């Protein structure tokens, strides 16, 4: 009778199977709620969103300094940079490339600073399919430990104009 006024005194507690289902569903909701803090402390993959304010100019300057200090080569005109294990690395997202190419060591941990100098961009590392948002004005720090070796393309997965699909970067792990 969903189209009509309900009978008087319709207010009553759930009973029988309905009550059971509400209880089961509530327990499941709590399980899902607790999984996130559990994984935060015990899991190895978290998006903690460590962030600092930064201007596009300042971030570009830090990246250039980082490239000058740690440059080990060049691929197609893009510098290849190898930071010391445990140190800070910088990655600029801009229309339409990722700068520079990072060379990392398997099993070592790096603090990768990511920011944009123009629009929103999306850091998407393939084929692991790990995705993080990159914004202008925000220095987003991802602490990452590569556990497989090879060359991994970074694609942009946030729309950033006509060259969006050609914005491909690279991380090399040895």
């Amino acid at each position: 009778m969903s189209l009509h006024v309900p009978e008087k005194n319709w207010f009553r507690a759930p009973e029988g199977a309905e009550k059971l289902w509400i209880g089961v569903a509530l327990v499941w909701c709590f399980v899902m709620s607790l999984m996130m803090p559990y994984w935060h402390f015990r899991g190895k993959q978290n998006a903690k969103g460590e962030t600092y304010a930064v201007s596009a100019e300042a971030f570009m300057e830090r990246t250039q300094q980082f490239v000058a200090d740690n440059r080990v080569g060049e691929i197609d005109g893009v510098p290849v940079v190898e930071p010391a294990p445990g140190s800070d690395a910088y990655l600029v997202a801009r229309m339409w490339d990722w700068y520079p190419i990072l060379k990392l060591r398997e099993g070592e941990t790096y603090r990768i600073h990511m920011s944009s100098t123009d629009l929103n961009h999306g850091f998407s590392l393939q084929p692991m399919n790990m995705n993080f948002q990159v914004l202008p004005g925000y220095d987003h720090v991802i602490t990452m430990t590569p556990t497989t070796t090879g060359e991994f393309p970074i694609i942009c997965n946030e729309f950033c104009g006509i060259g969006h699909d050609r914005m491909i970067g690279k991380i090399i792990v040895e």
Partner: protein
Amino acid sequence: MSTVSTNSAALDSPGADSRTCGTTGLKVCLAAQRFIKLNAVAALVFLLLGGIAAILLALTRWQAVHLLPVDWFYRIITFHGLNMLIFWILFFEVAVLYFAATIPLKSRLFSRPVAWVSFGMMLVGAVMTNVVILQGKADVMMTSYLPLLAHPLFYLGIILVAVGTLIAVFNFFATLFIAKRDKTYEGSLPLVTYGAMAAAVIAVITLLHGAIVMVPTFTYSLGWTPEPDPMWYRMIWWGLGHMSQQVNVAAMVAIWYLIGYLAVGAKPVNETVCRGAFILYILFINLAAAHHLLVDPGVSPAWKMWNTSYAMYLAVLASMIHAFTVPASVEIAMREKGHSRGIFGWITALPWRNPGFSAAALSLVIFGFVGGITGVTLGTQQINIIAHNTMRIPGHFHATVVGGTTLAFMGLTYYVIPLIFQRDFIWRGMARVQPWLFGGGILLVSFGMSFAGSLGVSRRVHDIEYAGAYGPAAHLFLGLMGIGAIIAVFSLVAFVLMCVGTVLFGRKIEGRAMADWGVAESTVEAKPGSLAHAHWAMKGTMALTSVFLLCFAVYYFANWKALADVWPVQ
């Protein structure tokens, strides 16, 4: 001086403009009827535009076809998103609100001029936005994330649609007020009106977010004010973008209850439970903006966890409650009609050839099993790392908004046109298969997108070949999406043609009942009301919801496993 009676909300008062429906015997306010018609017709036009855009997009992302050039691809995505997610759905929801506030309450519409202003603003806004997009001045996606900037008229158009909708929502609440004041009904609101009211409350909160984010963006695009912060924009925009989808959920659930009643005679097992679940939506769904910021900088993990779980998943609980109460009400009604064989015997006796019913039933299954399960899982804070901005996201929301909401709205249209436009449907055979084609097509689209996304394919990208990262499996799934889209869009176009054809050429219904789509029949063993206090009689529903919970848990934990396999990251 006019007498009190002509201003009364009651439709049986002297001077009230109304007619009596030949099918249901309900009084229909003629002003409400006019605006239900206008808004429903506008909705169908935007649905058709969005559907044409959909097929162009699907045939572009299907790499073997790759139809559109790059600039038109991004233009048409922007167009598709706004027409489907905003214009089609908002216009239809306004029609639902005008229906729910008047006919079940035997009330007149509060104000005809206010309804005109609302409709005019929404229509001008929607047309303005579409023209600006097609002129190529707003290739910014529906989300228009700053610092991307569109032509000022793009934002102004969206603001007009939002304010126009708010005015319609005001008209809805004012109608509820005068109906209560003039006692056009006794007791509590009917459940359908109650659900529509929940949708309207959420709509107000949603549209205020829209105003907060769109007005400064509009003034910035004119050069009057400084640029809003891009992260602030994302957070508030999703207060509009995600929450507006919860308006759809509430409206869709109200329609499930309505069609359950129309086609099967179903009656809620416990009104308190159904209404309580709508309250949970209102209270907790406004946290949903966080779902889009899970891998963003600037917001803490605690903020992400609390908000993305809608405060311990209490809005998910609401949907899980409806997922039980809707089929339970149908099952009890069927068992009372004498279809009591085994656990599932009642299911085979349901009126599956009734397109209104089959659309609502498929909507419930697709929304729950595909849209709901994927949505909660992808919106888990850490799991979002392997899902954010991939094709898994459109894979999820095509199951909720298209397979769920749009299909439910289509189902309701099979009743709206005979009852409000007073025409019997043409092409009735086509109508009976249309929901099945649409549901099947959308399932293929959703699966194709989700699996491609699991392989890392990004959403909103013209060409995946440059990356050199995707193998034949990803291409296969994009092809599956393309085939699904062809089926779904074929069904959508057939639906719109049937509706337009019926409104123009359908056999007129004046003073007689509509041609019935088919309802659940009673057998000789029927015992009406016999199960009113049988609290364990819904055996089939218990079995189905158990299967649902099992699927949910398997998918959820499989995703934690997939997450555990990627590089450690903090």
